């Protein structure tokens, strides 16, 4: 168990190294652009070269990479080219904002999709099952940008009850959070619902459920005491992986609603070749990916004692 977690940590460090190196190389393909983006299209060749030299761009790439790596390890992420402040100053508030968005989304998605999934899987093939299954396919088929446009058209343009942007310029406003969460939840709940339904349907076919039904237990008891416990193991893993999905899934939503979050930051950094911001964001992304995966795997073994680490 401990060994498993430690091995995962090792994998995480190795993955971080490879990803950060790849990013450095990838961004190296277009070095001249950085200076142009910072100084503007009307800067002279000389100005650009001066800027590049001042920021150490003429050093060999391995030197720059190891300098960054050395600083990163001791917690210095470098300075953002675009925001002209240390990366941490922009990164952490943005990450917190996305955390709020993700938590609110999960708060909607998890109960809704678990209830719908269990209801659908309880009686496979029933009208209720078909309705839930088809509507979850339909909602998953609508891309986030499309549902953002559709929902804004209804709630902002037609009904005029919700704000169309979520910049939060005057402090935190719950109203501005509703539309982004709605868009994310609509796109995401279908998948979790379908996984829950499949898991529930499988459990309903097992011998122990048949035994419980045949020995005359009330249907409610069969579901609540026998079926649910086993049916909710798979959705747990799926939900953990949704956290990772949300980190990149929010890009579109944050861009559309001008929400100041992690996804919007990463998009802006990528478009501006803001190398240290990209690297820091990527490291956060890898960390979240490996961490959620590990929690999912460890949690899985706790929930399902039949599986043990080998």
């Amino acid at each position: 168990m401990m060994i498993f977690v430690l091995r995962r940590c090792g994998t995480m460090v190795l993955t971080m190294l490879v990803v950060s190196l790849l990013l450095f190389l990838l961004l190296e393909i277009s070095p001249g652009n950085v200076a142009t983006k910072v100084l503007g299209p009307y800067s002279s060749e000389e100005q650009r070269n001066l800027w590049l030299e001042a920021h150490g761009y003429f050093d060999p790439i391995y030197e720059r990479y190891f300098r960054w790596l050395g600083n990163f390890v001791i917690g210095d992420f470098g300075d953002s080219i675009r925001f002209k402040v240390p990366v941490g100053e922009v990164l952490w508030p943005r990450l917190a904002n996305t955390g709020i968005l993700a938590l609110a989304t999960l708060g909607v998605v998890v109960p809704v999709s678990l209830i719908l999934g269990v209801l659908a899987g309880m009686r496979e093939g029933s009208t209720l099952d078909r309705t839930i299954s088809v509507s979850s396919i339909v909602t998953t088929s609508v891309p986030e940008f499309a549902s953002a446009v559709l929902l804004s058209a209804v709630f902002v343009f037609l009904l005029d009850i919700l704000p169309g942007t979520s910049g939060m310029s005057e402090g935190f406003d719950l109203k501005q959070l509703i539309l982004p969460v709605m868009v994310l939840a609509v796109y995401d709940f279908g998948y979790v619902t379908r996984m829950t339904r499949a898991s529930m349907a499988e459990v309903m076919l097992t011998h122990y459920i048949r035994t419980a039904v045949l020995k005359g237990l009330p249907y409610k008891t069969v579901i609540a005491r026998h079926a649910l416990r086993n049916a909710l193991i798979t959705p747990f893993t799926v939900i953990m992986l949704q956290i990772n999905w949300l980190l990149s899934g929010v890009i579109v939503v944050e861009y559309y609603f001008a929400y100041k979050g992690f996804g919007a930051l990463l998009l802006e950094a990528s478009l501006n070749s803001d190398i240290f911001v990209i690297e820091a964001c990527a490291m956060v992304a890898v960390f979240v990916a490996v961490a959620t995966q590990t929690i999912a795997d460890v949690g899985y073994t706790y929930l399902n004692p039949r599986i043990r680490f080998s």
Partner: protein
Amino acid sequence: MSEQTIEIPRRESSILLAFKSLALLRESAVGMVGLAIILFWVLVAIFADLLAPFPPNATIMPLVMPGTEAPDGGMFLLGTDHIGRDILSRIMHGARQVLIYGPLATVCAYSVGIPMGLAAGYVGGLTDEILSFVANVILSFPVLVLYVIIIATIGASAVNIVVAVTFASAPGIMRIVRGLVLDLRSREYVFAAQTRGEPPWRIMAVEILPNARGPLIVDACLRLGYVIITIGVLGFLGLGLPPPDPDWGGMINETRQMAMAFPHMALFPCLAISSLVLGFNLLADGLREVSLRD
């Protein structure tokens, strides 16, 4: 016995099987609806030149609501956009772009992912370790972020979109194929082929791959839907196909600021892309339902 005589019946049976599964699909109403939606868009894409009432890039009359008459007699059924291009015509021509680059990117991703998965699953050992690590590295990176960085770095063009989608989707396909191969490689017909002394590549391509096709076809349908969403997202973020060509995601991006006053401009491309993705998802669901039945 020559190899020819072995291969001919095999090929027939696979064609027959394909027809059988298509016939089976008729039993799944959901799958048939999906197939109908896809066929509709394929026909629209093929006959876009004949069906579209106006040239897709012609600027005729800006900011016109749906159903307005055009100056030269025609009708703007879905209105025009901010610089006066007919939205219906652009959606029809946009279908062409989506239905060329979506499948193309998916096929490219599969032609990279399948060999990787076969090698990892069948050869195993160090090959598996290395390939799995590479896949994990790419997969631990949020997919959309990967697209954005690749496209923002190497520039936005049709080829680069295909490259980015291939790069980001191949590891997922590799994992699926690897899992299927691990299950199939201990089957008797694989042992038989090994005993016959067939080379590994032949066992992978002729014995294992055809038997793994069921789940892969379902996955391909789902993935095609995702790829279409991705191409749409890239267009929406301004990283899609270069401007004048009609691209559904790009159309939404260009007109969303005006969505408050002219909601039709962004609304119809949204419906177009959603319906096409829905078609592929329904088809995948139908195929899965049918394949589980027997």
